[in-house]
């Protein structure tokens, strides 16, 4: 059966009803435009619509996931100031003290296989409360992370400051520059690589304070 091109000039257009073309020569049957032809623009529009319908929730979920954890470091050369969360900060010292003392000055014996690392971080800010509530964590060269001032050190009697970032003062006029001391408990064989300062409202950005290689 032969097929011919629909007559676009006849009026009313029988193609639009799905009926054979009455104007076609006798003995031939001309079928109306196919469903695909009649709906070609709708089908074409369906492709980007489906892509958009998939992309929007994926984008939203990915964005929420990305902001759920510190993933984007803000860093500077070792010892330099890092600008983060309306503040500047740098790692002043990083040591592993040979002698550990509790809050009344008595020596503390660490459990075997563990080592304390002590970081002194200096902060500068016009708003001393900007970093209040931040988290300070140490990352070792194997990628493992450790909390600052962990409970294990408190159990051993070591003093832990209220905040690892904010100035430890009740002064009405807070300082523009201050330092905090943060201690970490690591396996003896672990090598510190850097300190992460994390403000929840800045995620996924975090400050990365590189520890100079020894």
């Amino acid at each position, binding site marked *: 059966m032969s097929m011919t091109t629909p007559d676009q000039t006849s009026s009313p257009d029988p193609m639009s009803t*799905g*009926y*054979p073309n*009455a104007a076609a020569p*006798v003995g031939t*049957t001309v079928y109306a435009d196919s469903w695909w032809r009649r709906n070609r623009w709708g089908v074409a529009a369906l492709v980007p619509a489906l892509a958009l319908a998939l992309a929007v929730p994926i984008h939203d979920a990915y964005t929420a996931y990305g902001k759920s954890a510190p993933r984007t470091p803000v860093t500077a050369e070792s010892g330099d100031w890092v600008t983060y969360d309306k503040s500047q900060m740098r790692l002043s010292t990083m040591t592993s003290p040979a002698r550990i003392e509790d809050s009344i000055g008595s020596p503390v014996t660490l*459990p*075997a296989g*563990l080592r304390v690392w002590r970081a002194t971080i200096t902060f500068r800010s016009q708003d001393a409360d900007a970093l209040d509530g931040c988290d300070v*964590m140490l990352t070792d060269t194997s*990628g*493992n*992370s*450790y*909390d600052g001032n*962990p*409970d*294990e050190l408190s*159990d051993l009697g070591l003093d832990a400051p209220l905040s690892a970032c904010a100035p430890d003062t009740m002064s009405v006029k807070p300082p523009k520059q201050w330092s905090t001391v943060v201690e970490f*408990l*690591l*396996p003896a064989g*672990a090598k510190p690589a850097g300190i992460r300062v994390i403000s929840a409202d800045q995620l996924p950005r975090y400050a990365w304070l590189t520890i100079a290689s020894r």
Partner: protein
Amino acid sequence: MTAGLGPIRNHRRSVLSAFRGGRIVRRAGHALAIVATLAAGAAITDRTPDADTQQHPFIRSATVGHAVDARTFDVTVLGVRGGAVLGGISGSHDTSGVWVLVRMKLDARTNPVSLGYAVLEDSDGRTYRATGRVDQSILGERSLEPGVPVIAEIAFEVPTALAQDMSLRLAVSPTDQRMDAVAQVRLPITAGQARQWHADKNPLTLAAISVPT
């Protein structure tokens, strides 16, 4: 003007009739395709595991004295003890069942992690959460540091008759263990031990959290 349209109308009628026959076949084909699609959908749905099965936690089992990897932490059950009275800061707590205290070593793997879920589960799937009648700071409040194992004890209050049929289950999230690892250790409690504990009125005290030396 209309005289010449007679043959065309007749022809049109016959063509329309033939076309209607084809249309019925085509519509029957469409209906068949819809039925086939629905049947295929029903078959797929019928054979697809339900949400509970798809999202069930990954149970990692071990026996007492052996470490079990719960993805973000390791746990080794060191022992179990029990009694009828549990001491606490706020006084002694008795029970109509029995207190079961599980001693374990916990070790985070790569990042600080908190233990949020601790239950005893019997073979019928009934779960008994760690008691809230005494302070148990190992649950939720405290971070475990990688490479710094701690030894802790967790207390549970369970029916005496079921104490011999309990497994410890531990996970990080207190509310949502879907598709996460859950450590499971079968507790070696006998019926005789459970009865003995039920009769023992000497107050038990939870061991303090410690770092093994």
